[in-house]
C-alpha cells in the first residue's frame, strides 16, 4: 500500500468512528423510546427494542399534555419566523440600498446588540416585557426576539449584491419606493429570506431562555420549557421524557432534510448565529 492510499484509508476510518460517536446520542434515545417501560431500564440493556412499542409516545401525549406544548411551540415558532423575516428583510434592505442620515451609527448599534445576549440582561428585560403587557403571553415570545442582528446582516449582505441600477430605472419609470421594495426587491431576495426563515424557525423552536423568562402558566409552556422542567424533576419519568424528546426533534429534522443546501449555504455566507 502506498502512502496516498494509506492516508485515504486512515481518513475514512477516523471519519466513520467520529461520525458514529456523533450520531450515537440521538440514535440511542430514539431506539430507547421504542422500548417498553421496563425494558428501557433493564440491565444489561438491550440494544434494539425487544418488543417494539409506541406506548411511551401514547402516554406522553395522553397524560403528559405534550400535544399542548407542541402546539404552543409551533404557534410561537411559525409566527415569530414570519415576523423575523419581514422586519429583518426591511432593515437589511434599508442599510444596503439607502444612504440615509445616521445609517452608519444605526447599523453599528444593530450589530452591537450581538454583544448583549439575553442572559446578561435577564432582569431588566423581564421587567420591560412586563411593562409592555407581554408577560406570560405568546407575544412576549414572538415579538422581542424577532429582531436579530444576524438577520439584518445576512439580508444586507444579500441586497448589496443586487445592482442599484434596478432601483434607478424603476424610479425613472415612476415607481414609488414602496413599490420597488415589494415588487422588485422582495422577489429577488427570496433565497436570503428563506435562509433566514429556516434559521429563525430553528432558533425559536429550540429556544429555552425566552420561554423561561416570559412564560409562567404551565399550559403556555413551549416544548423546550416543558422538557427542561420534566428533566429537572426529582424522579424523572424517563419513558415519557425520552419519547417527547424524540418528537421534539422531528420538526427541525424535517426542515433540515428539506433545506439542507440552504442551511449550509446560509452558514457559509454569514456564520449564522442567533
Amino acid at each position, binding site marked *: 500500500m502506498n502512502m496516498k492510499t494509506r492516508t485515504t484509508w486512515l481518513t475514512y476510518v477516523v471519519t466513520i468512528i467520529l461520525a458514529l460517536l456523533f450520531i450515537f446520542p440521538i440514535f440511542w434515545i430514539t431506539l430507547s423510546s421504542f422500548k417498553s417501560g421496563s425494558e428501557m431500564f433493564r440491565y*444489561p440493556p438491550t440494544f434494539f427494542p425487544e418488543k417494539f412499542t409506541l406506548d411511551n409516545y401514547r402516554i406522553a401525549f395522553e397524560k403528559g399534555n405534550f400535544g399542548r406544548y407542541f402546539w404552543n411551540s409551533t404557534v410561537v415558532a411559525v409566527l415569530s419566523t414570519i415576523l423575523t423575516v419581514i422586519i429583518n428583510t426591511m432593515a437589511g434592505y434599508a442599510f444596503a440600498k439607502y444612504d440615509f442620515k445616521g445609517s452608519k451609527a444605526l447599523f453599528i448599534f444593530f450589530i452591537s446588540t450581538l454583544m448583549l445576549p439575553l442572559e446578561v440582561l435577564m432582569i431588566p428585560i423581564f421587567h420591560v416585557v412586563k411593562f409592555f403587557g407581554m408577560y406570560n403571553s405568546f407575544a412576549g415570545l414572538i415579538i422581542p426576539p424577532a429582531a436579530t442582528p444576524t438577520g439584518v446582516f445576512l439580508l444586507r449582505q444579500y441586497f448589496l449584491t443586487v445592482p442599484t441600477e434596478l432601483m434607478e430605472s424603476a424610479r425613472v419609470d415612476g415607481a414609488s419606493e414602496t413599490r420597488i421594495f415589494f415588487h422588485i426587491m422582495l422577489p429577488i431576495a427570496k433565497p436570503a429570506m428563506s435562509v433566514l426563515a429556516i434559521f429563525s424557525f430553528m432558533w425559536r423552536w429550540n429556544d429555552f431562555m425566552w420561554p423561561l423568562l416570559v412564560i409562567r402558566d404551565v399550559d403556555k409552556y413551549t416544548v423546550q420549557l416543558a*422538557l427542561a422542567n420534566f428533566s429537572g424533576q426529582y424522579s424523572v419519568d424517563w419513558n415519557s421524557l425520552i419519547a417527547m424528546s424524540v418528537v421534539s426533534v422531528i420538526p427541525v429534522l424535517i426542515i433540515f432534510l428539506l433545506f439542507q443546501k440552504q442551511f449550509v449555504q446560509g452558514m457559509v455566507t454569514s456564520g449564522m448565529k442567533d
Partner: protein
Amino acid sequence: MKRKKNRGVTSLEMKLFPYFLILPNLFIFTAFIAVPALFGAYFSLHNWSGINEPVFIGLQNYVRAFHDMKFWRSFGKTLIYVGISLPFIMGIPLFLANLMIKEIRAKGMFRAIFYWPSMVSYIIAGISFKFMFGDNTGIINFLLDLFGKSKIGWLTQGRTAMFVVILATIWARTGFYMVTYISGLQSIPVSYYEAAEVDGATPLQGFFKITLPLLKPTTFLVLILSFIDLFKAYGLVLALTGGGPGTATKFVVQYIYEAAFDGKREMGYASALSMILLVVMAVFTLLQFKVNKGGEIE
C-alpha cells in the same frame, strides 16, 4: 466617478422610506436591549425585589457581590468550564472541517451527521447525555462494565459531572463551528497547496504554514462566538445536571437567575451580578480583539 443616487428628484418618500424600513427593528433593539441595558445599570444601584419601590443604596450591591463567595465560586466554575471546553470546541471542528473538505465519498452525509447535533436544542442535548450517563442503567456505565471497569456515578460527583457537561457541550456545538471553518477553508486558494507540494512540503507543513495563518479570521470568529456562547451556558446544564451535584456545575447565569427569580427575588443584587458578568465578557472579548488584532491575517 460616483454618481449620487437621487440627484434632483429627492422625494420626501425617498428620504423617509429607509427610516420606515428600520423602524420595527429599531423599536425592538431599543426597547428590549438598549433600554434594559440602562435599566440593568440603574437597578444594580438599588435594593429592589421587583415589586416595591427601588431604594437607592449606591454601590452596596457591588460591595456585597465582591464578598459573595458563592458567586465567585460559580464564577470560577464557569471559567473552568469555558477554559477546558474552548480548546476542544475550537480544535475538534477544525479537525473535522479539514477531513470534510477532502475528496471523500458520502461527504454530504458525513457533514450532515456532524452538523446535526448543533440543530438539536441544548435541552435535548442535556437530556440525551443525562440518559446515557445515568448511574445504574446508563449505556456508558454498561460499556464500562462490559470492559471490566467499575461503574462511575457520572452525575453524582462534581468532577465527572463537569466532564459530562463539557462533553455534551462539545457534542452540541461542534457541527456549527465545523461549517464555519469549512467556509473559511474553502476561501483558501488550492494553488497555494499545490505550490507547496511541488516544493516538497508535507501535508502537516501545509496545515501549519498555509492553513492556520490564512484561516485566522475564521478562527478568530469561532473564538469570539464560542467564548460568548460558553460563558452564558445555562439551558444545557440545567437539563443535564441542574447545576449539581450540589453546586458543582452551577455557572454564573444560573446563579444570577436564581438570585433574581427564585426565593428571595433580589432583583437589584442580581442586576449588579449581571453587570459584573457583562463587563467581564466585554473585557475578555476586547482583549481577544487586541491580542488577535481583530483576526486580521498578518
